[in-house]
């Protein structure tokens, strides 16, 4: 059965023209409410900690970004400088790594290899 074919119901017994004595809606609703409270209870937000979470979450994000800006970013810049250089094991001399800008890098790399042997 489709619902589209059942449009007659609203007009069959219009509420204002009820053919029989209808018990008060308030009484029926109070019974319904009891059933709803049992079967579909309302989940109440307990305490203020959940409410404070609304402020805590953005604050945590801002704090996180600030920490990242202050601590992590300068560290990355420093690391970038170090990556370009390596220390020769044998001589303790600082050499430029392959691919780093500058001249004579390949040669020094070779020297490091020989020292290991």
């Amino acid at each position: 059965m489709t619902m589209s074919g059942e449009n007659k119901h609203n007009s069959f017994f219009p509420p204002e023209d009820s053919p029989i004595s209808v018990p008060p809606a308030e009484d029926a609703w109070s019974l319904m409410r009891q059933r709803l409270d049992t079967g579909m209870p309302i989940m109440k937000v307990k305490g203020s900690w959940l409410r404070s979470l609304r402020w805590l979450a953005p604050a945590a994000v801002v704090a996180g970004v600030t920490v990242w800006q202050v601590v992590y970013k300068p560290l990355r810049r420093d690391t970038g400088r170090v990556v370009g250089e390596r220390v020769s094991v044998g001589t303790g001399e600082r050499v430029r790594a392959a691919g780093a800008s500058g001249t004579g890098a390949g040669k020094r790399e070779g020297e490091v290899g020989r020292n290991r042997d």
Partner: protein
Amino acid sequence: MLALDLQQVIQGCVRNERVSQERLYKEYYVPLFCMCRRFFENDHEAIESVNDGMMKVFGHITDYRPEKGQFFNWVYTIVRHTAIDKVRASMRPSVLSGPYDMGEVVPETAAGHNPIAALERKDLYILLDQLNPGTRVICNLYYIEGYSVKEIAENVGLTAGTVKWHLSESRKKLKSVLESHFNR
């Protein structure tokens, strides 16, 4: 209820808000109660049936799709099916299944004429109260709710012949009521 209002109320019901649920319940209470009262002999059972159905409505309100039809019709269909299930569950099989199988005898509807539709609305309830519970349900489904014999048989769990027997019984028992009505 205005269309915009209805949307807000439905959304409130989706959020399980009591205020919205109360508005929806009270808006549809009278037609739903009248429908359930035709299935049951007393007000208490009718209210219980309305509430059973409305629990399903509130529990499955997210399943409603506007393209399938009006919201009221969706609610009405759920509550009616709940009432039918309640009738079927509460009755002993012997109450619903008549002693005779009418086979292929077609109910006398006089070329589509519905004798019950001609009655005053108030008389309809007096008339239904004179029938036994099983016949009452089938009479209600056939003449008022517009179910076909086949649909009643499927919904109530009877053979088509038994449904026809109930319809025949209802006409026999109500003959005097109908005659007095038409002789008025």
